[in-house]
C-alpha cells in the first residue's frame, strides 16, 4: 500500500496539535523543548493555567524586550509575564503541586516511550558522567496525566522512539498516557499503543513500519 505524500509536523506543529486537546480549566505544566511552545497555541479566550517548577502559577505571554522583569522567569530561565490571577509559591510548594497530583496535565519531552507507559528523558546511558535530572522525575510521577511531545524517530538513523521497552535509563515507570509525535497521536492502553490520530496522507502501515512497538487501530 503506497502513501500519498505526507509532511511530518514541525516542532510548532506538534505543540499546536497538543494545544487542541487541552480543555478550558486545566492546570498544566509544560516541560522544556517542544512542550514549552504549547501555550502559544492555546487561544486567549480559553482559560488554561500554566505552572512552572520554580514557583509560578499562571504564566502569561512572553514580555516585549523593554518589559523584561529580571525577577520573573520560567523553569527554562526565560523571561515571562504573570497573567491576571497568577500566584507565586516557594520551591517546595511548587513541587507539592507537581508531585501531589494537583496538575491536570504535564507535557514532557522524551528520548523514548514504551508501550507500558515507561518514559526515558534524562540520560542516554547509565554511564553518562554528568546527569541532568531537573524536575522531570517529580512531574512524571505526580501529574494526573502525563503526555509526551517528541519526534517519532531519531534524527540520525531514524530509529523509533516508540518502543516495546525503553533502552535508555527510565525517568519513571508506567506513567505516560499519550504521545504526540510529528506523525501521530498515540494513547498508552493496557493493550499497548492505540493510534488516535495520524497526519494527513500517512497510512497505518507506514506508521507501523516506522514504529518499533506494535500499534493498534482505534476501535470502531
Amino acid at each position, binding site marked *: 500500500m503506497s502513501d500519498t505524500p505526507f509532511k511530518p509536523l514541525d516542532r510548532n506543529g506538534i505543540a499546536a496539535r497538543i494545544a487542541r486537546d487541552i480543555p478550558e480549566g486545566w492546570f498544566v505544566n509544560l516541560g522544556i523543548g517542544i512542550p514549552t511552545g504549547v501555550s502559544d497555541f492555546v487561544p486567549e479566550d480559553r482559560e488554561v493555567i500554566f505552572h512552572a517548577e520554580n514557583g509560578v502559577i499562571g504564566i502569561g505571554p512572553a514580555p516585549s524586550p523593554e518589559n523584561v522583569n529580571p*525577577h520573573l522567569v520560567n523553569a527554562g*530561565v526565560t523571561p515571562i509575564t504573570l497573567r491576571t490571577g497568577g500566584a507565586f509559591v516557594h520551591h517546595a510548594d511548587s513541587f507539592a503541586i507537581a508531585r501531589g497530583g494537583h496538575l491536570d496535565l504535564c507535557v514532557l519531552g522524551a528520548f523514548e516511550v514504551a508501550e507500558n507507559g515507561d518514559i526515558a528523558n534524562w540520560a542516554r546511558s547509565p554511564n553518562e558522567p554528568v546527569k*541532568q*535530572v531537573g524536575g522531570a522525575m517529580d512531574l512524571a510521577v505526580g501529574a494526573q496525566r502525563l503526555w509526551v511531545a517528541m519526534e517519532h524517530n531519531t534524527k540520525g538513523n531514524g530509529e523509533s522512539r516508540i518502543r516495546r521497552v525503553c533502552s535508555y535509563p527510565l525517568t519513571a515507570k508506567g506513567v505516560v498516557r499519550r504521545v504526540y509525535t510529528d506523525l501521530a497521536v498515540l494513547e498508552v492502553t493496557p493493550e499497548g499503543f492505540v493510534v488516535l490520530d495520524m497526519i494527513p496522507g500517512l497510512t497505518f502501515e507506514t506508521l507501523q513500519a516506522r514504529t518499533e512497538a506494535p500499534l493498534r487501530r482505534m476501535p470502531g
Partner: protein
Amino acid sequence: MIHKFVSTTEEAMAGIPDGATILLAGFGAGTPEHLLKGLIAQGAKDLTLVVNAGGRDDGPIAELLATERIRKIVCSFVRPASVAARLFTAGKLELEIVPQGTLAERIRAGGAGIQAFYTPTAADTLLAEGRETRVINGRNCLLEYPILGDVALIDAWQADRWGNLTHKDSARNFNPIMAMAAKLTIVQTAHVVELGDLPPANIHTPGVFVQRVLHVPAQ
C-alpha cells in the same frame, strides 16, 4: 532590641568554617550573588554546596567552583558545558544528583524537623539503586533524608530589622525553605524597610529563620 542588619560583607560572612554545608538559593532569579562573592573572599574551604543547578561556564557559581574550595555539590542538574562538569570529570568535585522536587522537599524537611520521608519520585530509576524502597499504598517509594545547612545564603527584596523578608516574584524559589534549614541564615536584601512596614500577612520568610541581613541595593 533585635537588630539583624550587618553593615559590611565581611561581617555578613564572618565565621563560616571549613567543611561547612552551604545552602545557596536561586533559580535564574533570586540568587544572592553579592553574598556568593563574599563567600569567595571569605575563604572557607572543603565546602558542600547545595544548590538547584551546578552553574555555567561563567557567573558567580562558576567562580566559586573555580576556587576548588567546594568538595561536593548537591543539585538537580549539571550542564555538560560548565565548570562543575569539568571539575567532576577531573575527579576534583563530588556530585550528588537529586530530583528537583526531592531536593526542595529534603530541604523543607530539614527545616521542619522531619527525619525522613518516602516519595515515589525516582523510586524506579537508577537513582534508587542500592537504596531503600518500599511499596506504600501500592506505589513504589524511595526513602529520602533531610538536608540541613550550616549556612544558607538568601536573596530578599525587602527586609526589616527583625529579618522579616519578602521575595520578588519568581525570585522566591528556594529562598524561604533554605532560610528555614540552616543554623546561620545570611540574607542580602535589595531594600530595607522599617519594622512594621511589611504587612504581616505578606511576609514570605519570617525573621525567626534569619540571623544576618546585609543591605545590597539593586544595581
